[in-house]
């Protein structure tokens, strides 16, 4: 009996072992980084101005990136979820393009259009006096470029999960297309949209390659970590890495808990 039960459960057992290995591969480096520093160590590191400035910059630049991705990504996600049009597959590929571009290449591409002589950078500089090379604005556009697909794809899944009948029912009850979006589609896709925004935030914080090209200074945390590693070695950089890890984990878990547990109700 045990043998037959073992046979039927065999696939599950093998899968569980493989899953455990995969999880260990993820957890081990993270746990090791966290545990290799005493709280005193971390406290000392955190009071260094360059460290807390870099971590703070990473957090708020990523937050701005999330807002920008929300504003720009949700309408596109809605159109992709709801409409059929010529060239749709091209648009879908374009949305996913940043996922396949090496991030240094992404940085160079972003710099070419947002730099002082770029097609976006030049007029914005002329009209508003805003520059992107070596500025927070540059960091945000680089972060947005690499993380945008997460917003669109996640929100799109959220919208696709809503039956078109529900939206049409709302129209027959007198709601305009915008009212339907506001009162029905947006609340029902809320979870997908927020997951997208969270993924954008997480991806933006972790971005190195693209940000490195467009704005080495002011330093975001990943650039500071690389900088410290090259100058002072593993020990100096790993303390900042552990600190960034702890802060992002706490914020990520809190946001996930607050946003995704919220009951979506009008």
């Amino acid at each position, binding site marked *: 009996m045990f043998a037959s039960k073992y046979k039927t459960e065999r696939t599950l057992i093998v899968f569980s072992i493989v899953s455990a290995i995969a999880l260990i591969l993820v957890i081990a480096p993270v746990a090791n980084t966290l545990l290799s520093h005493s709280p005193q160590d971390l406290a000392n590191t955190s009071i260094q101005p360059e460290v807390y400035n870099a971590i703070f910059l990473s957090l708020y630049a990523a937050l701005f990136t999330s807002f920008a991705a929300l504003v720009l990504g949700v309408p596109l996600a809605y159109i992709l979820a709801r409409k059929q049009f010529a060239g749709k597959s091209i648009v879908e590929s374009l949305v996913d393009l940043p996922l396949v571009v090496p991030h240094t290449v992404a940085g160079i591409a972003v710099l070419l259009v947002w730099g002082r002589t770029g097609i976006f950078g030049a007029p914005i500089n002329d009209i508003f006096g805003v520059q992107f090379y070596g500025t927070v604005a540059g960091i945000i556009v680089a972060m947005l470029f690499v993380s945008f697909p997460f917003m669109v794809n996640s929100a799109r899944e959220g919208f696709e999960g809503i039956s078109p*009948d*529900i939206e*049409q*029912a709302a*129209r027959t009850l*007198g*709601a305009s297309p915008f009212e339907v979006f506001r009162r029905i589609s947006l609340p029902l896709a809320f979870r997908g949209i927020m997951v997208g925004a969270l993924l954008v935030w997480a991806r933006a914080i972790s971005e190195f390659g693209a940000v490195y090209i467009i704005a080495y200074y002011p330093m975001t945390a990943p650039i500071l970590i690389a900088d410290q590693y090259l100058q002072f070695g593993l020990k100096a950089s790993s303390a900042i890495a552990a600190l960034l890890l702890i802060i992002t984990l706490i914020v990520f878990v809190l946001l996930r808990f607050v946003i995704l547990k919220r009951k979506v109700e009008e």
Partner: protein
Amino acid sequence: MTSVEVQNAYLKLGQFNLQDINLKVKSEEFFVILGPSGAGKTVLLDLIAGFSYPDTGKILVDDEDVTFLPIEKRRVGYMFQDFALFPNMSVLKNIKFGTRYYKIPNVENRIGELMELLDIVQLRNRHPTTLSGGEKQRVALARSLILEPKILLLDEPLSSLDARTKEALRDEIKEIIEKVGITTLYVTHDQVEAIVLADRIGIMHDGRLLQVGSSDQVFDKPQDELIARFVGMENIFKGIVKANCDGLISVDVGNAIIEAVSDIAVGNKVTLGIRPENITLQVGETISSARNIFSGKVKQIIPLGPINKVKIDCGFMLNALITKRSSEFLLLSKDREIKVLFKASNVYVIADDDRLFGDI
């Protein structure tokens, strides 16, 4: 007091074509669009609701052209197959949803009355996900009716329910709509639903509205073989009129001569339809006034609850429906010799006009 008219409507949707739809539904009429899956019933309903627009043709509501009027300006109630309740709102908020856009005098009282009429007062704070199919349907009906729509469109609202609930709700829908008094278009593939609910029925197939009439007209006098098959005339034969004697024609159907009441002249091609429930079976000596009596052998008995479908080989195949009790009384079994009887007046005759016939 609202009438709906569809004039010469055409719509191409990929491989599917809605063709030459002409239909007028009178004020407060309960009109059922009956047809098999893929006939275009929902497409027609969607044109009236404004979910899509015809390539050519017009939709008129009270003689006003609404063909390209946005959905939210049409004041049309629509009941979807899955009821399409808003899962992010309670029952009460679902019902109130449209009152923000349409001004309903004394709205709170109206909602209360409607919820009482539909017996959903106790559901007011529940969420759609916790409701049964029947409850969802009543809430969806309330959500539409509170806005006093000009027209109510129902797209197979009973198709996802079990047989017992279906029957109860079908009667309920009829009663409520009669009470409210609203022009209604109801789409179904279920003939019983159509007969029970309809003031008039329109038969649709392959994007065309083939026949419109009362249930008696459609079910007893189908205009062609296609409709005849769809409305349950299982015994259909093609033949040529060999004799006509004072309105009693003899039709050669190949292996037999069938007599029917008609004034079609000798030599014409006709299609004959006989409902399986109009066929009588007997054993032994037969005394009957029926004009058509054939000997045959039972080939198959298919139990359908209290009724059996009996397939009989009389040189040509006939399907008969008889009660289980009659089957037992006649000791029916495979290969039993029996007599098959049906009246000439129960044979429906369609003059062939060389239409292309297809299976439904």
